[in-house]
């Protein structure tokens, strides 16, 4: 059986073991696993000759890294000022209620993770919600619910609607 190299081995070999590449390596490893598993952090620390504490420190300091597995679909609500003055708070509240999770959490069925971001720089479209890589502009609480329902339906998980 052919043994495949783990994403952390691939990333460290690609960029080299200098510490300045740590953030980039963590980004790439996270892209593969969808999060940063403990095993991968241990491997990275060993390969790069950095203490695990330091790797853990960087992985927890920056908000784009997650030590928990993420859902299949990433829902990111922009909380930039331009979005805020156009009621992104209401949009986030509705996304939270609809999915039943707080930002940073993942639904029990691993279908959705909810995140907030400080500004995507797409201010003309605000409030912006990004689902996976698709930008949805001019969101309202009612519209974000529709978007989320549609994604769930495409997964064959259209919930029994209380409406």
């Amino acid at each position, binding site marked *: 059986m052919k043994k495949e190299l783990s994403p952390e081995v691939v990333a460290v070999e690609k960029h080299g073991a200098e510490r300045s590449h740590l953030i980039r390596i963590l980004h790439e490893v996270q892209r593969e696993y969808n999060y940063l598993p403990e095993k991968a952090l241990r491997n990275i620390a060993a390969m790069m000759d950095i203490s695990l504490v330091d790797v853990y420190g960087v992985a927890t300091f920056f908000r784009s890294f997650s030590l928990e597995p993420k859902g299949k679909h990433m829902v990111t609500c922009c909380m930039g000022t*331009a979005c805020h003055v156009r009621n992104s708070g209401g949009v986030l509240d509705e996304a939270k209620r609809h999915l039943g999770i707080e930002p940073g959490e993942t639904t029990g069925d691993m279908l959705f993770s909810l995140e907030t971001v*400080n500004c995507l*720089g*797409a201010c003309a479209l605000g409030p912006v919600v990004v689902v996976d890589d698709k930008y949805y502009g001019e969101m309202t609480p009612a519209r974000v619910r529709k978007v989320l329902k549609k994604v769930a339906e495409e997964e064959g998980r259209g919930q029994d609607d209380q409406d």
Partner: protein
Amino acid sequence: MVKMTRIDSPSALEHYRRAIKEKRAKYVKTVSVCGGTGCQAHECGAVYEALRAALDENGLAKTVELRQTGCHGFCEMGPLMVIQPSGIFYKKVSPEDIENIVEASLKGNKVVEELVYEDPVSGEDIKKESQIPFYKKQKRLLMSMNGKIDPCNIEDYLAQDGYSALVKTLFEMEPTEVIDEVENAGLRGRGGAGVPTASKWKAARKAIARDGIKYVLCNADEGDPGAYMDRSLLEGNPHAVLEGMIIGAYAIGANEGYIYVRHEYPLAVDNLLVAIDQARELNLLGDDILGSGFSFDINVSIGGGAFVCGESTALMASIEGRIGEPRVKHIHTAEKGLYQRPTNLNNVETWANVSLIINQGAAKYKRVGTKNSTGTKIFSLVGAINNTGLVEVPMGITLREIIYDIGGGVPKGKKFKAVQTGGPSGGCLPESLLDTPVDFDRLYDVGSMMGSGGMIVMDEGTCMVDIARYFVDFLCDESCGKCVPCREGLKQMLYIIEDITEGRGTLEQLDLLKELAEVMRDTSLCGLGQTAANPVLSTLEYFENEYLEHIKMKKCRAGVCKSLITFNINPKKCTGCMRCRKACPVGAIKGKKKEAHIIVQEKCEKCGICFEVCEYKAVVRK
């Protein structure tokens, strides 16, 4: 593209430039489709592909040049298309429009009327880009290039005489002459604080590098929410930033550079990497640039989503692969910065200004702007404004001119309330200060700051106490936690403001807020903490009434603070259509079909969906 070969002299570069220009002379027309992030969200990619196919089909590919460019700035109207040389401007173009555009404007010289921009104020159709009020009052020295070049094709930049400032620098100027020129031009840092660029360069030049290594860095960690000009420059015109950095490196005597980009800007990272590769291939980066004997190369470093990394020492820590915490400032980064070596850091927009100064000379450069704030500044004009987008204006223009003449004022007939500049370190300015000229010093005088250039317009639907809460909440989240005044001060500040927005506030708390603000300003470690109270102080100064209303009358006049508002249904207007009842996520609305509905207050979570979906304006927010 012509096969790229290493260029080893200025004359070889000019030869190459001429070849590019000659090759392009065959094109009769050029179509630019905006490919910035704003337009991409409006599916400009499909427009580009459809046009590409249509040009082939109609045999126009040899006479019409098609280009996907960076951000043109007028994001509100995207996807944008500009046809040159006529200057025809089309807004909100969709793939279905391509057939008409090809027939009318590319085969012929007519205009597709329905895609023409209509001035919301006069109702007039405006066919040309240069005539549109949004662009007319701007001074687009940096941004104009975005519409002319494909950022992934270095030939486009060369065809616009790109890298000519670099040639002049390397072959006609001494390093100190470069610094003098930048000093005479009066260039100040566009990232926020407005430090004179030349003084930073001088310090870094003077600093002694023990092992001969100095660094030149570019801060592209554009973290201020509501600001996206740096992203647009990197996405749309990366070579302007690279050229500036190479010139700066030559002036300082550095051979290695880093660009630190937020990971939230994937397109900027991609375009930057392509630009660096192409510059290396042509010998504009790397060893012995253009045969001058000067060597310099640039790496791209990607952030991890921490606002504090826009702070210089935190940014350097992050490039080194460490936690992005700032350090005390008595050790200057010019002497001990990245890896403890002499380092110079400038912002994206600052770097983009450098080649402009070298090309046209300091004297001409400073004709634009005011005495102490020369040149232009790019702002992202967003929020409650008709013409959202990036605007580049001469410094000294008033806020009123930007908001009303360029931005077209506040939409939906609502009243202007405030404009916020300077991001989380800046402040909110009221209508009475709209005639303030925009320059570094004047904005500071009135309690705000230039910052990186976010300009968020707020109307009567914005609660100023909530805005203060928003920024404090933002900073609370983004404080790195290293020093106590910032970490704990922000937390206490947030508690107090939340008390006020939730109807528990007292008048004594306002004094406490001011006291906290002073302590944080005087004792925090870095700029983030020192300026963190500005949004609170400026709203307290200019909008104290709103704080008092929240505290004394438990009233939020903008209808934003949930604890202080209620939703009700006006039975006279309600038709019993069931729309709100179906939409209510918590089942708080009762009522039968064709009978007036009511909202059960105990269940209502005040999400406002009923208010949003009601077509009869029967839902009242108070």
